[in-house]
């Protein structure tokens, strides 16, 4: 910890001394290397001494262009959240939660090869589909890291995958994209004693803790093999016709949430053992589409309309009663998102979205299907709405923004934030994440975790 602070202080001094150009640039600007240092501290709003986040990260991004057709890019990020080292509510969080999980420190590493009209990006990367903000539906290629409850930037919570992204553009504004993904990574989420633990995680932990102490607990994960035969595949057609941008999407892959099961057995014929299996091998089919259209004439000029639609066949859900899972089944699930964006009063950007998740059924064999994040009974139709407003002052130096998300169980998330550019190399920011609602609701489950935070990002 002390070393990190010393390193950051030294770098800070160097930057303030006038190091404003990229850390390193190859001759002729063929390559560049940039460095980002982020520190963020967050506490409970009801108790400022109750730390929730003490986060430090070092990120290095570099690119090199070999020639007009070939280039490489690398993005490495190491972080450490010291909140789990400090005595208090979260001391001794679940293993690995305080830092990068596995090899996810290698955020991206790929080579681009272009020979028009063909393009290939091969390596570890993120691929983003869809037109929505803040809610993931068609953005289904990369799994997610929800240890911070998806409160951070989307590029940070997506877990990059090794894949080949192949594209062909038969005409200027149309592209066929093919993704071959031999890599599998499950979603990452906080454990039961961690800061933003889902209610479902806590309930499962409580149930295990309630077992007699003589029962041994064993955990087993079943994950797909990392090869092309067991990989995921995806296709997207994207085109712009007369101002209408649309995509048609298909993915054959895996559900990133596991199907949990527990089996009692006598190990060595004498030790009662509960083997908890997390099965990540459930295949799903995703069919999707999206569109955007900007109104360019008439009274509605300046309005942008966007939407995305998703049909998931074979989507697994747990079922049971009173928050206790007794099995898993799969259903068909439909999602649509409609969004409107408009600028008012010259420079106030507003954005609103309506989201509905429609499930083919909400009960199975007399049990409730559960919403995976909360183990609350699933509704046939779940509705959400989002509203975002942002503007800027002092030549885009001061940027306030507000995000509000409403869920139909009368739960809310309200996240105001303000950022300020101190100089070319330093941004500082502060904000709140406020959650309201009942314990079993998506945002209400975090109602004891309202957070006030402040941070700085130093880059050069």
């Amino acid at each position, binding site marked *: 910890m002390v070393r990190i602070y010393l390193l950051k202080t030294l770098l800070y001094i160097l930057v303030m001394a006038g190091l*404003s150009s*990229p850390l390193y640039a190859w001759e002729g600007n063929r390559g560049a290397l*940039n*460095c*980002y240092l982020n520190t963020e501290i967050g506490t409970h709003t009801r108790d400022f001494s109750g730390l929730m986040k003490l986060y430090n990260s070092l990120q290095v*991004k570099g*690119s090199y262009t070999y020639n007009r057709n070939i*280039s490489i*890019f690398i993005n490495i990020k190491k972080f450490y959240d010291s909140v789990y080292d400090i005595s208090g509510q979260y001391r001794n969080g679940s293993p690995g939660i305080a830092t990068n999980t596995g090899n996810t420190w290698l955020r*991206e590493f790929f080579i*681009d090869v272009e020979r*028009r009209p063909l*393009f290939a*990006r091969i390596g570890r990367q*993120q691929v*983003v589909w869809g*037109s929505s*903000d803040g809610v993931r539906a068609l953005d289904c290629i990369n799994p997610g890291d929800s240890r911070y409850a998806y409160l951070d*930037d*989307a*590029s940070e919570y*997506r877990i990059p995958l090794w894949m080949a992204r192949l*594209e062909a*553009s038969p005409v*200027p*504004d149309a*592209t066929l*994209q093919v993704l071959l993904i031999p890599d599998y990574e499950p979603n990452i989420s906080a454990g039961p004693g961690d800061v933003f633990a889902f209610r479902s995680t806590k309930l499962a932990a409580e149930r295990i803790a309630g077992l007699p102490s003589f029962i041994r607990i064993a955990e087993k994960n079943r994950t797909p093999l990392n090869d092309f035969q067991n990989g995921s595949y995806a296709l997207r057609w*994207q085109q*712009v016709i*007369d*101002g209408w*941008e649309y995509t048609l999407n298909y993915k054959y892959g895996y559900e990133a949430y596991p199907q949990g099961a527990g089996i009692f057995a006598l190990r060595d014929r004498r030790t009662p053992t509960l083997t908890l299996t997390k099965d990540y091998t459930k295949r799903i089919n995703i069919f999707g589409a999206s569109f*955007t259209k*900007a*109104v*360019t*004439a008439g009274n509605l*000029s*300046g*309005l*942008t309309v*966007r939407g995305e639609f998703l049909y998931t066949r074979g989507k697994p859900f747990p079922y049971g009663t009173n928050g206790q899972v007794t099995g898993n089944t799969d259903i068909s699930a439909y999602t649509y998102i409609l969004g409107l*964006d*408009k*600028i008012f009063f*010259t*420079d106030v*950007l507003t954005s609103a979205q309506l989201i509905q998740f429609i499930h083919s059924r909400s009960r199975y064999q007399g049990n409730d299907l559960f919403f995976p994040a909360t183990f609350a009974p699933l509704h046939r139709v779940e509705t959400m709405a989002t509203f975002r407003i942002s503007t800027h002052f002092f*030549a*885009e*130096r001061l940027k306030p923004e507000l995000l509000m998300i409403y869920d139909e169980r009368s739960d809310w998330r309200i996240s105001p934030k303000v950022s300020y*550019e101190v*100089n*070319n*190399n330093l*941004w500082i920011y502060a904000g709140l994440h406020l959650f309201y609602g009942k314990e079993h609701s998506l945002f209400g489950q975090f109602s004891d975790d309202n957070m006030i935070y402040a941070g700085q*990002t130093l*880059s*050069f």
Partner: protein
Amino acid sequence: MVKWFVMYLLAAALMCAGIPAGAGEVPVPAQGMSPEQIVTVWYDIEYTRFARDYKNYNTFFLRDRNGATRERKAFRARIVIAEPDIAYKDYAVFLTPASIKGVAMLSWHYRNPDREREQWFYLPSMRKARRSSPAEDDENTLGTVLTVEEMTSWRPQHETFRLLGVQPFPGYVSSFDGKESYRGERCYVIEAFPKRKNAMRSKRILWLRTSDGCCLLQEVFDKAGKIYKTIFRRFARISPQEYPAIVFVEAKDLRTGESTIIRCDKIVFNSGIDEAEFSIDYLQRMKW
């Protein structure tokens, strides 16, 4: 005879294939032109409509009233399209500082001056090319004191014009580099009145050089008739075509004391840039 005819046809076809769409002669003001026609010459120069494509590496200096300066480096490219609807496509990306590196904008501009442009942003924090509502014309853009209209969306059809006369330019001393420019050069002095009722300005006065139509200075007046902004431009001829190009812009907001300097570090015309580089898919290939 037939062979010669076929060869002529082939040669003509090859020549036509080599001429980029939209390329043409650089317009210049001529005797007897109306104020609208003179301003249209300037519009063609400002948006390099005589060239097939244009690339520009530039540096923005954003100065506040206390003189504190923030610096941004950017790359901008434009292609004139031979399509019935779209006039040109524009692409810009920030190269420094690291905090905004990779933020990019793609816009398509229609021939119809009353039709709003299409616009997409690439935001590194989302790793996503996102369609956006075009900003309003009077909004300051990119942290500069220049409005969207002054930077991208202005069209001659949006204003009415009145020629005040031909006068020698009084000269302009840059507060950035201290150089005095263009003293005594003869200029058309033209008043431009916005047709838009909700425009923040009452009028602009344009100083357009008689020899080539380049706008040396633009003075912007508020509704009370008080000047509140000046935009000075310096020009150079870019080899090998000797096309005129803006190489320096100094804009001052006289109300706030803020100023913006844009220094063009490298300009290339007709580099053969592919139209595919002005597509959403290309925007989605951003790395940063």
